[in-house]
């Protein structure tokens, strides 16, 4: 039954169709499941790293502007591809511009979010929100600068989507990076536990936070930017999944990384499967709407229950 759900796809129209997809379509759905699982795991791990290092349970790639920066990088690349009439593999190679955009944004946020040489979690989040707005303006500029047809393509991508075809290089890079990140983050679980202390306290028990924090930020940023290149900006996964895992596994980060990755897989693949069956005559609903419907109320619940206050 689970396999049927993962691979089924209803046709465009109002009628839902349960059952196996046409023979040729199975491959596309399997690709989408692999991409969705990778994106979900990467966002779950990224959110866990950011929440631990910022000592802020509301932190996630969107809040720090990483997704917007990566999105701006992808938009600029798409715009250049269109303007220059590029074709072939380069017309689909958005991972590098996304990583450049995401990490450049993170570098700015990291640089401006320090006070007296120490990273200040509150300043960091404020700077992230501002930089995110600036990147959003850049994205709107590119949307405005292209033809109407391309603009709707841009808009769809901005809502988040799990592709059913993706280049082997992009898929291999994203899966490989996510697996490596998961292994490294599990190994750094103890350091993340101590990272929830103040800087002086962490140092006093044997962890110099500066270097570890820099590496983990770079990893969290690269993971989030890679998912943006593959699937567009998908919100709330990085926020909700670490909390969902925490409810089951407790606060130790070694286990939490694995749990958040699994929660991310369930959330993104589940949302992608669900959206296959819902369409209102204007094509299938973008996945970002699903994750926002789940994540938005969860965000508010976190605020109301006090879990969002560090």
């Amino acid at each position, binding site marked *: 039954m689970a396999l049927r759900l993962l691979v089924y796809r209803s046709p465009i129209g109002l009628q839902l169709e349960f059952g196996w997809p046409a023979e040729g379509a199975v491959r596309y759905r399997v690709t989408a499941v692999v991409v969705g699982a990778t994106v979900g795991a990467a966002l779950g791990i990224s959110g866990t790293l950011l929440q631990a290092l910022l*000592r802020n349970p509301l932190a996630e790639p969107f809040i720090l502007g990483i997704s917007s920066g990566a999105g701006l990088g992808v938009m600029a690349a798409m715009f250049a591809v269109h303007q220059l009439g590029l074709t072939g593999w380069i017309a689909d190679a958005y991972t590098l511009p996304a990583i450049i955009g995401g990490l450049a944004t993170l570098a700015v946020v990291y640089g401006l979010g320090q006070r007296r040489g120490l990273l200040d979690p509150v300043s960091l989040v404020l700077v992230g929100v501002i930089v995110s707005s600036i990147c959003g303006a850049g994205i709107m500029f590119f949307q405005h600068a292209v033809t109407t047809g391309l603009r709707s393509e841009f808009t769809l991508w901005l809502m988040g989507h799990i592709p059913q075809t993706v280049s082997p290089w992009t898929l291999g890079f994203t899966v490989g990076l996510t697996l490596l990140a998961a292994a490294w983050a599990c190994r750094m679980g103890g350091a993340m536990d*101590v990272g929830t202390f*103040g*800087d002086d*306290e962490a*140092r*006093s028990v*044997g962890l110099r936070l500066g270097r570890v924090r820099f590496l983990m930020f770079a990893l969290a940023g690269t993971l989030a930017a890679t998912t943006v290149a593959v699937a567009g900006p998908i919100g709330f996964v990085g926020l909700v999944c670490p909390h969902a895992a925490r409810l089951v596994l407790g606060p130790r980060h070694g286990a939490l990384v694995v749990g958040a990755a699994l929660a991310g897989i369930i959330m993104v693949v589940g949302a992608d499967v669900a959206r296959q069956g819902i369409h209102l005559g204007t094509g299938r609903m973008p996945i970002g709407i699903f994750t926002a419907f789940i994540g938005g109320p969860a965000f508010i619940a976190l605020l109301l229950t006090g879990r969002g206050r560090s």
Partner: protein
Amino acid sequence: MTLSVENLEFKYGRDPVLRGVTVEARPGRITALIGPNAAGKSTLLRCLTGSLRPSRGQVLIDGQISHRASARWLAGRMAYVPQRAVVAAAFTTQQVIELGRYALPPAPHAVLEVMGELELLSIADRPFTRISVGQQQRVILARSLVQLADDGHLALDEPTSAMDLKHAHAAVTALRRRAARGATIILALHDLGVAADIADDVWLLHEGRLVAAGTTRVVMTPVHLARVFGVSFTMVNDAAGRARLFSNPAESTPTTIPLP
């Protein structure tokens, strides 16, 4: 085993906070670091732990410069209790205490022993963020005690300020026990009565300068205290021959300091 401060200077931006502090802590003794607000007590403690890099001079811990020492090595030689702890995760009190051994081999028996000593076993499973500030202070003290080697160093910033009388006594007893085993203990305190009660030695700071250092009886004199705090004190011997300092009630809230 040795902790010495050599011509230490520290500035926040251009503002000097510590000016030419030179002093040595004695192993096996409790030293109170006292002075008025903004005297530089917390800054000096953070320089001792290597968290702050001095603009001049140095702190030597067992011969190593504290701000250049590796965090892992330092964790085995110097523990620290901040004025207000930060734990931004839903760890239980026992988990927070266990993290004191992050850079050291696990010591589950020591964790339970210290928790018993500070009466924390009954709240072992409570989330740290949901206990009172006084209880949090005991947990952070316990975290530092499981980290502290018998001949190690411990720096504490107002460790008992939010504790009730009974638990403050338990905390002081635990510190005295560690000092008796050979640990070097330095506490920043604003309460002069507590300082006189706890400390064997006192460092008196004023505007970033070390005004006096030595045994409690040598440093806590009416002359020194009047100079630094701007309040006159009178020394009176009671019927049993114990000396006490009384502040002038016209200049401050009435304060009695029992001297050892």
